[in-house]
């Protein structure tokens, strides 16, 4: 069936795809290129230099922001992984009406524009007289990330054979033992992938952090945003390149992880949930 289909490729679709990739990567390539520029210009490349990078590593405010962002992302990834997995397991098994209602409510953060979540979190913390700090950013990011983990883990659970857990129960496991010894180990690749993805998303997240952060220390994206508003500069290009490279690495790792465990699985299972049973 495929030989005839491939006889004539739709030239228009292929052209648009090529142009799309060029459009996608051109601005990113420009940022990376000019981060190595020896002069301040953003349009002419005078020579290779790493001065903007060494500026970054000698800027203590930026380094503090970087470690704040790493801390926020780690805490959010671990906490949302625990809560999101519990939620996914519960939703997968509780098929009652109330279970579905809970499912709908818990997915709300995914379809709510981020600015609304940000505003709501700001009012919530202020209402409780909590001082805005890294802790408030963490709490907001955890709440936001639970839904991501839940979607990924539920996709994986849907592809799992329920009989394996049944078998464990027949062999005398309690429900909790079956969960701990059979189901959770099967979920490990999906959990690692989801953790990495959430880490990358939270590390880069600007909007929620912007609304919930205190003054000092600020997460890296918030710090970058305030310097962008004063104009573009090669120093921002260097920070941006580092951030892009770091996140890209994390996401590639998240996509490739399932392959380490199952050689035949596709790298996109993390996003598409793998094949359904």
């Amino acid at each position: 069936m495929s030989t005839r289909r491939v006889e004539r490729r739709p030239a228009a679709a292929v052209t648009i795809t090529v142009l799309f990739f060029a459009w996608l990567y051109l601005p990113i390539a420009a940022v990376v290129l000019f981060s190595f520029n020896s002069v301040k210009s953003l349009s002419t490349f005078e020579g290779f230099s790493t001065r903007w990078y060494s500026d970054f590593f000698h800027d203590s405010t930026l380094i503090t922001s970087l470690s704040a962002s790493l801390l926020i992302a780690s805490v959010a990834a671990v906490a949302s992984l625990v809560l999101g997995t519990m939620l996914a397991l519960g939703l997968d098994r509780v098929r009652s009406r109330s279970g579905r209602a809970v499912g709908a409510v818990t997915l709300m953060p995914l379809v709510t524009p981020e600015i609304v979540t940000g505003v709501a979190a700001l009012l919530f913390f202020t209402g409780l007289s909590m001082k805005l700090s890294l802790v408030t950013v963490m709490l907001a990011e955890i709440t936001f990330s639970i839904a991501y983990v839940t979607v990924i883990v539920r996709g994986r659970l849907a592809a799992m054979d329920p009989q394996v857990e049944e078998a464990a129960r027949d062999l005398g496991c309690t429900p909790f033992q079956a969960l701990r010894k059979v189901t959770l180990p099967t979920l490990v690749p999906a959990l690692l992938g989801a953790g990495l993805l959430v880490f990358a998303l939270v590390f880069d997240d600007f909007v929620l952090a912007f609304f919930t952060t205190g003054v000092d220390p600020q997460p890296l994206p918030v710090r970058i945003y305030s310097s962008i508003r004063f104009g573009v500069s090669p120093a921002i290009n260097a920070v941006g390149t580092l951030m892009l490279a770091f996140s890209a690495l994390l996401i590639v790792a998240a996509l490739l992880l399932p392959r380490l465990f199952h050689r035949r699985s596709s790298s996109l299972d993390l996003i598409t949930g793998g094949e359904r049973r």
Partner: protein
Amino acid sequence: MATDQAVRPGAQPEARPPRRRSGQRTRLWGTLLALPTAWIVGFFVASMVIVVLLSFGRTQADGKPVFGRTTANYEALWNDVYLQLFLRSLGYAVATTLICALIAYPVAYAIALYGGRYKNVLIAAIVVPFFASYLIRMYAWSALLSDEGIVNSAIKGTDLGDGVQFLNTPYAVIGGLVYGYIVFMILPVYASLERMDVSLIEAGKDLYHGPLRTFLAVTLPATRAGLFGGMLLVFLPALGDFVSAQLLGGPSTYMIGNLIQQQFLEGQNWPLGSAMTVSMMVALTLLMIFYLRGTSTRARELQ
């Protein structure tokens, strides 16, 4: 719990165990559900309620927001300036959604049907930059299009003119939104094309003669769900966005997100900002209901 099972003398072994098990289980799954649900209700739902409550509040003379029962904030929103800004945001978001569909469909189509063994690599090449820093990607555009950026210096270099002012135009803002959210359109369309039976296209070609008619009669209806889903996933964040208009636009291209952000972090009129947020959510919810109704009836008619 072996002891549990031992204390069942005389029970019918076929009937009892499943029921016992499901009882034990439901308790376990219910326990698992409880904590995350409490977390989301405690933070997310409660914070949404506060926004709604504060939208009926007012700002005290000392600048502090207090709860109240006034509709003054909503009345203040009902004027030409705000309505125009809201319609502008709506227009930008609709334009973004349509442009995304026009670009994403051919890209997903080419990759799903002609990507061969590079399919996954190509999709990953799209996904990776999209999930890596939205802010930096918006910055990348503003650097490229700025008056002293590469594009303008190229134009000046070729004596075509004194350069073009890209920033502060609606095109730049919409372009930024498309660049920011198009992945949410590509992924669902790609997934639905992947699931589609390609022999349908074959059959369509025999039946309808011509690729365009085949596309309209076979491929498009088969991937409708992915396309409609993608449109929703692009429209929602695009309408609430404020980074694109902040970095690529200016006051003349501000969107509702910029206005909300100003009320909370610059203007310090929180009750008014809350009313804006609630209005936006109500508008979004209404649009979503109409949209989902419309798309599901159309899908039903086609069956």
